[in-house]
């Protein structure tokens, strides 16, 4: 009985292959986008953990200097006092023009918890300490020229990092001092207090979840939100397909029940069927997700590197847990999408009419109820926007806004079509509009998906474009000098300064110290008083005499991130390194996740920390750029140490563009999924709509004409949806710019509108709708007359 019943149930899919395909495709796509995003996140997080784990920073306490570095003598003094600490050198070296982080460790004192590399092979330790053996990720190893020590590649390191022995690092970094000392977790008895032994060092607790992970959280939350959105959009398709398949099989259910199949058995069989379908689609989806992730990961890696300096491998590693979670989400999605249908089947009276009710017909009343719910969510979003704070709240706000808008969409469409029919003059247009309105409930899920996709598109597009405009303008301000020159050492720096004296309008040294800024690590820059800064520096808020006061050493400038994080405004005190300063102004500093401050160069030198940086910005007439470049190269400065403004701008903009490639790709995919939802909905509706179309055909309209009208309907609906997507998208953009960005990145961006993009998207939506409707319409146009005639003869 069971077997016979099951084969009767699944025979439905043989008869309705399109339903089957749309169900599988919808679920597979939803799973793919979701698990793709998860794979990217997991890969990135693993990279962060590796980066943090490299030096045991995720587990072990460490000693850090308040400013500068820790001299060798201090380290020895701490060791000789009995404390088990291990020194770490940390700096950057240039490999063929790219900056690579070089970490020097002492394998003899490194606590096992912080051992970054495996030296257990025969002769490894000797190679490491004596021959300068490097350890690096294969990506990084490829960059290391053969003139440098031999490299051992290891996947466990994050790209962009080289691990070497202290002696090797000391040589390459030209230093005798340490960035930090790692404390062994177990220490000998009866030690003198650390505060006596190392009074100048800060005892830093292990980094919970580590810095990079925290910084990039927002980015991953963004990705996750997109993944979730795509998943939701995909579920619309699944829900629709399952709902239809159940509706159409109601007569069969009734027959089976009448033949003595228990309700629980029927439900069990249907659940089994859904489970099997979910498993198939889930497997397909996870495989697709892998492809999505593999395709997007290099850009994500570039984004993370550009935005946060986080090193993420561009290669994807497969993880069984991830496969399983992908399958689980597919099953969960199916359960969510199928729950309603199963519930209805469970409550189906055995003698219910066999005639399937028109699919998902919703009365005006239920449209209103739905819209009321939507309005409530939008109201909640408004309240959150006014009173809420925090990144999570920002995303909840986004969710409320989007779902709320989606829920009000059907009623909006209903009223819009009603209004339009008031202006209708012909029977055909009357009917077309009325019939379109009739279709709204059946298409509402697909249209909601389209709304979400379009709103996300407009919102994210507006954000990115606003960001681009602001960023480009800001680059022009920040990069006001024509040439940027890097000396190789202090002597060369002094020589260059002499050489350039009188040759250029201004030589602006770029000097900084590493210091704690309001007890978080950061950099403090020192600048000289120059008209370049006075005219160009992108100040957001400032004291009226900001530049005079700064030059006089009366205070500091801070970046927007610091200002927002610590709630500092001009006039407030700020702690930089060991001293306190008055905030004179706040400047925008896009692309920098950390706090930063500017002092006068004299003040910076007075901080007592080693001043770093051998860079100069040169102001000179554009026409003399080549001449001065030649002057510098003929003085022996390598060409790669001279960069002009245009090159830096191009580089920065490139980083910027790559940053949003992923967002753009996900956006396009989501729109694609929405179009697919529309297609499958239209396909399934097309068979059900014959009873509506046949009488009109009987009254003298050709099938071709009806098909054209069907196409028109889809376009009308898409156009109306696009109309409502615009304000929703703009609201979304505002939330992203004014709330999410501030919380996630620490900068607020002015919103700029790009109507031309909207027109493009509008047209894209219409085309997508027309394409989605094209196939069902064509099927209608070429349908045998007999199919339509059947409508008149058959009991429906």
């Amino acid at each position: 009985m069971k077997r016979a019943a099951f084969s009767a149930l699944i025979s439905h899919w043989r008869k309705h292959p399109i339903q089957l395909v749309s169900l599988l495709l919808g679920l597979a796509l939803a799973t793919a986008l979701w698990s793709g995003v998860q794979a990217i996140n997991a890969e990135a997080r693993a990279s962060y953990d590796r980066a943090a784990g490299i030096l045991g920073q995720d587990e072990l306490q460490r000693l850090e200097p308040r400013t500068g570095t820790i001299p060798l003598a201090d380290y020895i003094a701490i060791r000789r006092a009995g404390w088990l600490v291990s020194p770490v050198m940390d700096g950057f070296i240039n490999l063929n023009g790219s900056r690579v982080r070089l970490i020097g460790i002492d394998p003899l004192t490194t606590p096992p918890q912080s051992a970054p590399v495996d030296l257990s092979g025969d002769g490894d330790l000797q190679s490491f300490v004596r021959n300068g053996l490097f350890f690096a990720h294969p990506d990084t190893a490829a960059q290391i020229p053969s003139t440098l020590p031999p490299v051992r590649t290891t996947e466990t390191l994050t790209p962009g990092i080289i691990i070497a022995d202290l002696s090797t690092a000391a040589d390459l970094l030209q230093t005798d001092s340490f960035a930090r000392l790692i404390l062994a977790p177990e220490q000998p008895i009866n030690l003198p207090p650390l505060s006596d032994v190392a009074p100048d060092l800060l005892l830093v607790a292990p980094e919970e979840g580590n810095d990079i992970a925290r910084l990039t959280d927002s980015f991953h939350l963004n990705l996750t939100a997109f993944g979730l959105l795509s998943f939701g959009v995909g579920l619309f398709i699944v829900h629709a397909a399952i709902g239809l398949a159940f509706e159409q099989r109601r007569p069969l259910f009734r027959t089976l029940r009448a033949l003595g199949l228990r309700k629980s058995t029927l439900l069990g069989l249907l659940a089994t069927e859904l489970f099997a379908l979910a498993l198939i689609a889930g497997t397909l989806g996870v495989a697709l997700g892998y492809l999505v992730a593999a395709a997007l990961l290099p850009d994500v890696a570039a984004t993370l590197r550009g935005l946060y300096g986080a090193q993420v491998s561009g290669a994807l590693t497969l993880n069984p847990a991830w496969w399983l979670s992908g399958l689980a989400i597919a099953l969960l999605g199916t359960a969510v999408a199928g729950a309603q249908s199963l519930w209805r089947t469970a409550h189906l009276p055995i003698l219910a009419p066999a005639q399937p009710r028109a699919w998902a017909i919703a009365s005006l009343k239920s449209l209103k109820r739905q819209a009321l719910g939507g309005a409530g969510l939008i109201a909640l979003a408004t309240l959150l926007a006014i009173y809420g704070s925090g990144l999570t709240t920002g995303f909840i706000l986004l969710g409320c806004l989007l779902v709320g808008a989606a829920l009000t969409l059907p009623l909006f469409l209903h009223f819009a079509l009603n209004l339009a029919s008031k202006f209708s003059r012909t029977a055909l247009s009357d009917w077309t509009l009325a019939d379109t309105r009739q279709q709204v409930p059946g298409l509402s899920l697909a249209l909601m998906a389209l709304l979400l996709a379009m709103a996300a598109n407009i919102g994210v597009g507006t954000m990115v474009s606003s960001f681009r405009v602001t960023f480009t303008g800001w680059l022009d301000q920040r990069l006001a000098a024509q040439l940027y020159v890097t000396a190789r050492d202090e002597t060369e720096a002094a020589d260059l300064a002499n050489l350039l004296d009188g040759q250029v309008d201004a030589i602006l040294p770029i000097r900084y110290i590493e210091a704690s800024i309001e007890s978080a690590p950061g950099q403090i820059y020192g600048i000289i008083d120059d008209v370049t800064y006075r005219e160009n520096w992108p100040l957001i808020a400032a004291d009226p005499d900001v530049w005079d006061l700064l030059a006089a050493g009366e205070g500091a400038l801070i970046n927007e991130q610091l200002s927002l994080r610590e709630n500092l405004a001009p006039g407030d005190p700020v702690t930089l390194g060991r001293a306190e300063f008055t905030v004179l102004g706040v400047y925008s500093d896009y692309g920098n996740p950390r706090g930063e401050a500017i002092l006068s160069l004299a003040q910076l030198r007075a901080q007592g920390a080693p001043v770093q940086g051998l860079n100069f910005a040169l102001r000179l007439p554009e026409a003399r750029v080549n001449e001065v470049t030649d002057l510098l190269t003929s003085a022996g400065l390598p060409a790669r140490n001279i960069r002009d403004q245009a090159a830096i701008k191009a580089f920065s903009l490139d980083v910027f563009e790559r940053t949003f490639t992923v967002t753009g790709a996900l956006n396009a995919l989501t729109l694609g999924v929405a179009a697919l939802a529309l297609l499958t909905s239209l396909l399934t509706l097309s068979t059900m709509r014959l009873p509506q179309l046949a009488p009109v055909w009987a009254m003298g309209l050709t099938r071709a004409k009806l098909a054209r009208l069907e196409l028109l309907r889809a376009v009308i609906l898409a156009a109306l949806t696009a109309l409502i997507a615009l304000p929703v998208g703009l609201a979304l953009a505002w939330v992203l710019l004014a709330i999410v960005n501030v919380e996630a990145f620490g900068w607020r961006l002015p919103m700029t509108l790009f109507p031309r993009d909207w027109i493009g998207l509008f047209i894209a939506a219409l085309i997508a709708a027309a394409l989605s409707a094209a196939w069902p319409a064509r099927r209608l146009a070429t349908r045998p007359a007999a199919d339509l005639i059947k409508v008149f003869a058959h009991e429906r």
Partner: protein
Amino acid sequence: MQTVLRDVSLSLEAGKSLALTGESGSGKSTLLTLVAGLDAPDSGAIRFQNHDLTQMDDAARADLRRGEIGVIFQQFNLIPSLDVAANIAFHARLAGRADGEWCSELAHHLGLADHLTRYPEQLSGGQQQRVAIARTLAARPKLVLADEPTGNLDEDSSDTVLDLLMSGVRDTGAALLMVTHSLRQAKKLDRRLHLSHGQVSP
């Protein structure tokens, strides 16, 4: 593929009515769809006024249906998205001869005046069929085709609806071809033909 009708020949003059009877599957409904130009016969000719439907293309047949032929189905086949008034006027407007007065007169005559703003799903079967009749008559077709127009109705409303149809057809001077399995109803028409296994017998 199976031949439903064979060697069927019949004619109908303007203003006259003809009942087509026969058991289920006798091919009477097929005959109706052929006359309506909804489908084309494998061979033979169907003449309406001076046109041979079998020589016309899909679009031309659609034009003919729109302008000259009204079809009334057993299932009513109203347009669910339009209210009663719009349904009644629909065919006439498609045919380009909307006449508000005539429509309201029909509505009044068919007892629909109180239901003009309602939607088909809110009406009873008899009421729906009356709307379908009104819709057909409003377009003033030369030929009215009715396929078991009272097949879904109980006996009382069957008679009422049929009487309304007959009088309406008479008033407009159209010809009526009605398929029915009810001999009692068939007798109300001018002529009767019996179809059996795709063949006509008087």
